[in-house]
């Protein structure tokens, strides 16, 4: 196949998702290639978030398969696994409507990202001193690296429910990064941010991709940023893939322009 060595990748084959009479996804076939920076675009209701929800196991496809080939080359049928097993395979995500543990500190939220990598049960936790303390310290060091990377030092002890929106988004990104994911699904990481915050978020995504070797999959409506940072773009409309390719090609694709602007407006040029 066309996969780069030692990188996890995901393959959706004929994924259809129906809720009663509503078809959210119809026969979606797409690849997430290990090592790339992929963007998913499309108008509201196109099914972008549904794709992420299927990959992370929150929705189960009505038809079709989702396969993850891990770094060691083993194949896993994601469409049959519960979300926590998928997370263990190295798939992390953020949500469009920030889903943090809002009564906890930023630090504890990000520590939870280490859950799958840590060991320790009720007994060792309750006794604490000894092995569990050593484990907590070891993983705390990784968490501090994430905090350092995202410049979250000043707020690490803050209760996240009280933090401003932009910082909550960063904490959520930090929690996903703490998993050391192979695949990082980001659902509208730029939504609701000012241009300065957008810029630093875009920077973080690029750094995660380049320095940490993670494969980000980004959904967003900010075409400028998306076209700027992504290597490949997949466009969805009404639950179907309508275009796929390098950003410039997808941007110029008549069907994509039509999807965003409606009929007869093709002359207006690409969305900006």
């Amino acid at each position, binding site marked *: 196949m066309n996969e780069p060595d030692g990188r996890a990748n995901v393959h959706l084959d004929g994924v259809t998702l129906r809720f009663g009479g509503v078809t959210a996804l119809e026969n979606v076939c797409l690849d997430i290639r290990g090592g790339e920076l992929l963007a998913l675009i499309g108008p509201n209701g196109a099914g972008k978030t549904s794709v992420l929800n299927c990959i992370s196991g*929150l929705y189960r496809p009505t038809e079709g398969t989702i396969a993850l080939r891990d770094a060691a080359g083993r194949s896993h049928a994601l469409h049959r696994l519960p979300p926590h097993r998928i997370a263990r395979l190295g798939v992390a995500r953020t949500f469009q409507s920030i889903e943090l543990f*809002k*009564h906890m500190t930023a630090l*504890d939220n990000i520590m939870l990202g280490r859950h799958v990598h*840590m060991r320790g049960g009720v007994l060792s936790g*309750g006794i604490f001193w000894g092995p*569990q303390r050593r484990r*907590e310290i070891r993983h705390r060091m990784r968490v501090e690296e994430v905090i350092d990377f995202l410049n979250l030092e000043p707020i690490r002890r803050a209760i996240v429910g009280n933090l401003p929106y932009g910082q909550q988004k960063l904490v959520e990104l930090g929690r996903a990064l703490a998993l050391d994911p192979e695949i990082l699904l980001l659902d509208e990481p730029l939504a609701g941010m000012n241009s300065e915050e957008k810029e630093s978020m875009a920077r973080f995504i690029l750094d995660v991709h380049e320095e940490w070797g993670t494969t980000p999959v980004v959904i967003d409506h900010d075409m400028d940023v998306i076209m700027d940072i992504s290597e490949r773009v997949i466009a969805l409309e009404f639950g179907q893939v309508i275009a796929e390719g390098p950003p410039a090609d997808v941007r110029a694709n008549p069907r994509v322009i039509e999807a965003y602007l409606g009929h007869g407006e093709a002359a207006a040029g690409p969305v900006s």
Partner: protein
Amino acid sequence: MRLGLFMGALLVFPFLASPYWLNLANQIAIATIGALGLNILVGYTGQVSLGQGAFMAVGAYTSALLTLRLGLPWGVSIVAACFATAAVGVFFGLPSLRLKGLYLAISTLAAQEIVEWVVTHWTALTGGVEAVVVPAPRLFGQRLNTDFGFYWLGIVLAGGTALFTANLFRSRIGRSFVAVRDQDIAASVIGVNVFGTKLLAFATSSFFVGLAGALTAYYRNIISWERFTFETSILYLAMIIVGGLGTIRGSLFGAALITLLPAMIGRVGQELQGSAPAIAALLPSVQQAVFGIVIILFLVFEPEGLSKLWRNVKDYFYVWPFAYRRGEGR
């Protein structure tokens, strides 16, 4: 320092206190263990349980019957009772796969009813509605079910439970409990097995609730089902709500308040017997109302409970009389 003072007070207390106060202290120790257990489930993990009385009954009857019928030493049967209660807790936690909030609460009410029914009807095993007499526990030849003897057992176990709980919630499993409470979907996508975690919370919680039940049996010498009714479940819920959900300190404060309140009302009643017998006669019936009022007042004025009040007072004196260290928080 403050902890040292508190421990010192605990050590001196039994030598100064009358049996009346020792008895209350022992009740508070047991209630603290039970409240910590319930708080693990309700306060920290967000799974409302109305089955506290039932789980305490399981702990009490298991430990009592193991000693009585099989002749096991009291220490062994208490530990066995804790594990038995944990298993029963897991069983009645199974509906939490599908049910949340009030719906789960109602399903745990089933635990209460079923256990109560089993205890009162399985006469061959439990003695039914008759009380079970529990052999006195002994340590180094000393009877532990005297007020003085039990005090030491009570505070060691209550302190141990508090320490265990505090440690639990600064480590991996405890964090996953709170994650399930705050946002179960987010918990699942970062790799927390939500259902497994809920069952683990039921097990851990019930373990300590079972301990509280077993201690009740050994302290009281006599147990009967009437000690573990639905009212017990409600009282314990009141403890953790008034004390503070999801806090260790709150479990202790709540246990103390809810234990002392009726005793104090009773005391006032006795004092008034001579001077105002009419009011004294009224008090027992007012007791329930006072309870209700206290809980309502807490929900209105300090929803985070006594634990928050304590923090407020501490914060106040932290900067008193000069506000030069403001903003440091705790």
